[in-house]
């Protein structure tokens, strides 16, 4: 049963529906990722104004539903916009990726207070980010962890023994990190134990903290490969916003530089 109490939400995306309406995908603490129907959202600027733009933090009131079906928005109060994000293309592209990743990793209508906190902190941090690659790695790592999809990184996924070797292999399809004894075929991404140690330590940091975290080039490089492989394995389809990130990186030395 969908609780129709007004709640705070982050707009993840919207799709135009018919001539005047929109279907909005939201992230709320109470319902997690959920879709809602915004009647006349395109036709009437007064109904929702600019509040339904992606990355906006809003307070939503739900329309009382007479029968089962998609939730419907009655009112949306704008709390915070994406104003600061709109001044930086790399930040904006990474924000889009973050929203799409949340939609892709989380099931619909499951409470997700921690994911809400992570995404909210991530979107607030991006306009002042010291390092976009660090922000991306932190977001991916935390979302995989909160969604219960993070492969084993603190011990061997096959024999469950602590990782004692300096070099190890990682293969998301086989559960995560594998010690050399369990991975005789040498298939997988080569990763240093120190990188895995850093990733494990990062998971102990409070999830809403993005600022002030500095990672070595090695952790960033190997961590990104490892986590992105895990993301690719966890989501059912390639993320569209990731192609845009790659485009910016390839052409202009941006997000992933």
């Amino acid at each position, binding site marked *: 049963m969908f609780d129709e109490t007004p709640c705070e939400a982050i707009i993840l*995306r919207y799709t135009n529906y*018919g*001539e005047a309406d929109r279907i909005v995908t939201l992230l709320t603490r109470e319902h997690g990722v959920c879709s809602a129907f915004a009647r006349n959202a395109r036709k009437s*600027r*007064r109904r*929702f*104004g*600019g*509040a339904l*733009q*992606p*990355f*906006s933090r809003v307070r939503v009131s739900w329309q009382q539903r007479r029968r089962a079906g998609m939730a419907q928005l009655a009112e949306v*109060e*704008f709390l915070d*916009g*994406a*104003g600061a994000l*709109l*001044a*930086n*293309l790399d930040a*904006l*592209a990474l924000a*889009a*990726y973050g*929203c*799409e990743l949340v939609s892709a990793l989380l099931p619909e209508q499951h409470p997700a207070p921690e994911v809400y906190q992570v995404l909210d902190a991530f979107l607030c941090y991006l306009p002042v980010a010291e390092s976009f690659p660090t922000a991306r790695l932190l977001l991916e790592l935390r979302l995989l962890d909160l969604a219960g999809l993070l492969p084993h990184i603190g011990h061997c996924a096959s024999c469950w023994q602590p990782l004692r070797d300096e070099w190890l292999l990682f293969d998301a399809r086989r559960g995560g990190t594998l010690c050399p004894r369990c991975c005789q075929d040498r298939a997988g991404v080569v990763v240093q134990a120190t990188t895995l140690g850093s990733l494990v330590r990062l998971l102990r940091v409070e999830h809403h903290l993005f600022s002030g975290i500095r990672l070595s080039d090695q952790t960033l490089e190997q961590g990104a490969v490892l986590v992105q492989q895990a993301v690719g394995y966890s989501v059912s389809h390639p993320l*569209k*916003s990731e*192609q*845009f*990130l790659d*485009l910016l990186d390839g052409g*202009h030395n941006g997000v992933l530089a």
Partner: protein
Amino acid sequence: MLSSIPSLTRLVAELGKFPGIGRKTATRLAFYVLQQSDAQAQALMDAIHDVKQNVSYCSRCFHVTEQDPCALCTAMDRDDALLCVVEQPQDLMAIERGHAYRGRYHVLHGVLSPLDGVGPDDLKVDELVERVRRGCVEEVIVATNFSVEGEATALYLSRMLQPLEVKITRLAHGIPMGSDLEYVDEATVGRAIEGRRDI
């Protein structure tokens, strides 16, 4: 009921493919066409046929036109140094209705949308860069909509055009003329405050 009249069924089906036209409206329109004289129905058919035959995109600005280059690209009284970039031909028409702009145009035919997988290759971005590189443009006015996608497109264009050493400007935005502050939404008021200017 309509299935026993195949011609009418076909017309309803075709009209129903138009945006915003449901089955009921399509049926009403089909009956309206049926009640028209042969000459009126022929005029409608000719108009649709002519649009498809004669209207194409201008090879310079990509606006809709019956002659290439279009009248806006060949008009002698327009300023070649000013180039206004818009999302769609309808946006160009809206700016023309303002009677305040006398430069040239470039229609992108869309906006970048990372969440929908629309990238620069899907728009007329390369053509714009080439046009600015070749021509005598001094200022590019980015007039994409004030949505996240429109802003992303503006930032991307700015990044692509900056090496060409042209002035890049963005349309001002804020409170609409004649509106009451009381009824303006929070996001617009916020952006208007951020974009305030000296008087």
